[in-house]
């Protein structure tokens, strides 16, 4: 065991984590991309060292996304969308540093909890995960969607926006590789050439959050001053571990939710933080504060998306099936070395397995140390004058959009289309948060809904499939009822 922990092994993890954080922190660059570009290096590094690098990139990439989410309101990666909902309002009222610290601590705890789960229960959990058929997966997605109602300032418009997001996500082909029939739909005549594959998530995301925000600033003449207020004000708003302690239950629950969503193949990486956030809001005593700068929201989002890291490795290492798009690339690292991943992996490769656990542990610690002490430098971002910051962000958005699918120009145009749409949306009352959630979850909702009916042929299957389905329905009802009660309470208060 000890012989694999060499200086090279350690420096690859730390270096990988650092590069991952940078990729995660730049809007448009993602953990998946970081792993993809470094994958060829692993061939010469050997398996354990290669994995050390890739796992560092993975942990760093997922974590780095919180920095621009909080400071600029632009999620650095799709999985940090829910961090913007509360992180950016906090930064705007001068609590950016506090929000960053909350996010980093939550990320660390989420990563460690999921790692413990991975280490102790990987095979058992994989056996549980395969109990989730199309029906249960649809209900999980449906539950995640209920947050749309809760996130909106005007429930009717919020739900409308969310359903619109689902609708837009269905444009293009019913993807064969997800189980569809490959037929086109919802495409205006004459645009098949471009819209065949629909709109990609990342360009849509950075268009809505990045370009649209800059257009809004341009509209009001790019007022001088910083993009967020000075990072610290008054002793009242400084970070203390008491905030985390108050959220202990939320933290553990969100980490476990993130881990579990990672374990379910096909539910997807971005869904983890959305579901954790939905849950936190449903069970919160002050749900009305969510979306306005509630620390518990950051806790849920960040522990949820880092919880994903350990979770997504469970099906990879115990079924040979990736839990998200980044772990799908890790399979490549194994097959390049001629190592099979599947139900026998852990038993057959104990050294590699231990090396992975150790690498994940070190990556999480390295991530925490580097990010916690780099907060002051992150904060410099908001002191850059806007006339320099905005053009640079625009350029990074273009690069991110172009490179996410390895060089497709239509993705850059998507960025512009959704940038303008995001600006317009703000004017006509369409809400971006539910829209993007609908857009992210739409394709999986479709596949699992249609496949449930195709396979079981009866509408009642959604209620009768299993006890898991019943539990999920209880959560769905709880979340919807919570949103309705909250809306009523707010209406009464405003009257």
């Amino acid at each position, binding site marked *: 065991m000890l012989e694999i922990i060499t200086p090279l092994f350690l420096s690859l993890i730390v270096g990988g984590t650092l590069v991952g954080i940078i990729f995660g922190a730049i809007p448009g660059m993602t953990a998946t991309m970081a792993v993809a570009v470094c994958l060829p290096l692993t061939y010469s590094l050997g398996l354990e060292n290669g994995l050390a690098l890739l796992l560092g990139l993975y942990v760093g990439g997922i974590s780095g996304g919180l920095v621009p989410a909080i400071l600029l309101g632009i999620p650095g990666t799709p999985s940090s969308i829910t961090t913007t909902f509360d992180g950016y309002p906090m930064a705007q009222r001068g609590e950016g540093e506090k929000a960053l610290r909350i996010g980093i601590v939550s990320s660390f705890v989420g990563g460690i909890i999921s790692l413990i789960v991975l280490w102790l229960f990987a095979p058992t959990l994989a056996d549980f995960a395969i109990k989730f058929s199309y029906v249960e997966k649809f209900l999980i997605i449906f539950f995640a969607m209920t947050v749309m109602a809760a996130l909106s300032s005007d429930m009717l418009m919020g739900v409308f926006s969310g359903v619109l997001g689902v609708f837009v996500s269905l444009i293009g082909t019913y993807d064969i590789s997800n189980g569809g029939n490959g037929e086109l739909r919802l495409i205006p005549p004459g645009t098949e050439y471009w819209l065949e594959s629909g709109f990609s998530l990342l360009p849509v995301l950075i268009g809505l959050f990045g370009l649209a925000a800059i257009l809004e600033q*341009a*509209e009001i003449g790019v007022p001088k001053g910083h993009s967020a207020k000075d990072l610290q004000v008054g002793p009242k708003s400084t970070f203390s571990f008491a905030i985390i302690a108050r959220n202990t239950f939320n933290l553990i629950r969100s980490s476990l939710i993130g881990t579990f969503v990672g374990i379910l193949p096909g539910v997807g990486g971005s869904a983890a933080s959305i579901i954790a956030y939905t849950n936190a809001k449903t069970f919160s005593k002050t749900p009305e504060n969510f979306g306005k700068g509630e620390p518990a929201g950051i806790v849920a989002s960040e522990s949820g998306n880092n919880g994903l890291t350990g979770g997504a490795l469970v099906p990879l290492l115990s079924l040979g099936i990736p839990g998200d798009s980044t772990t799908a690339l890790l399979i490549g690292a194994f097959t390049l070395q001629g190592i099979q991943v599947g139900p026998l992996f852990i038993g057959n490769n104990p050294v590699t397995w231990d090396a992975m656990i150790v690498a994940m542990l070190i990556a999480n610690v390295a991530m925490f140390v580097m990010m916690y002490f780099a907060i002051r430098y992150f904060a410099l971002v908001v002191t850059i004058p*806007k006339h320099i910051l905005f*053009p*640079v962000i625009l350029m990074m958005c273009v*690069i991110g959009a172009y490179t996410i699918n390895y060089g497709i120009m239509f993705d850059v145009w998507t960025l512009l289309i959704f*940038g303008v749409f995001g600006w317009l949306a703000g004017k006509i009352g369409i809400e971006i948060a539910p829209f993007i959630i609908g857009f992210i979850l739409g394709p999986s909702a479709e596949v699992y809904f249609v496949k449930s009916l195709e396979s079981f042929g009866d509408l009642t299957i959604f209620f009768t499939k299993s006890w898991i389905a019943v539990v999920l329905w209880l959560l769905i009802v709880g979340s919807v009822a919570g949103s309705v009660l909250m809306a009523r309470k707010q209406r009464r208060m405003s009257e």
Partner: protein
Amino acid sequence: MGDLTRVTIDFDTSHLIFPTLIACVLGLLGLAVLIRDRARIAATVPYWRGLFAAMDKVRFLGALVLTLLYFSLMVPVGNIWPNTGMGFLLCSIPYLLATGLLFMHERPLRQVLPLLIVAVFGPVFVWWLFTYPLFLSLP
């Protein structure tokens, strides 16, 4: 329950089921919005007129036009030297500089200089990073 809840899905047309369902829900919600917000919708024209009047037209439209130009030129320029990322590099430098100047309020040399440095070295650094260490395609 019996027959009422039974459904048979024809795989060949299954791509239309969910979009149809969502379109119906969207239509109903849209109708509800129309009814509830009819007063606001009736005021659309004055609302936009007001918005347009208050807008910083030069910066807003300028940013849009520059972005449009930037995106349109990148590929043709890149095609002159295929697969080298030159389209990105040669378009990004003027774009960064132009939007930066557009967003600036006063343009003394002391402020233009840092922008100029960023506009030149930013794209060059990114181009170098993507072409050599990362080995990713740029336009």
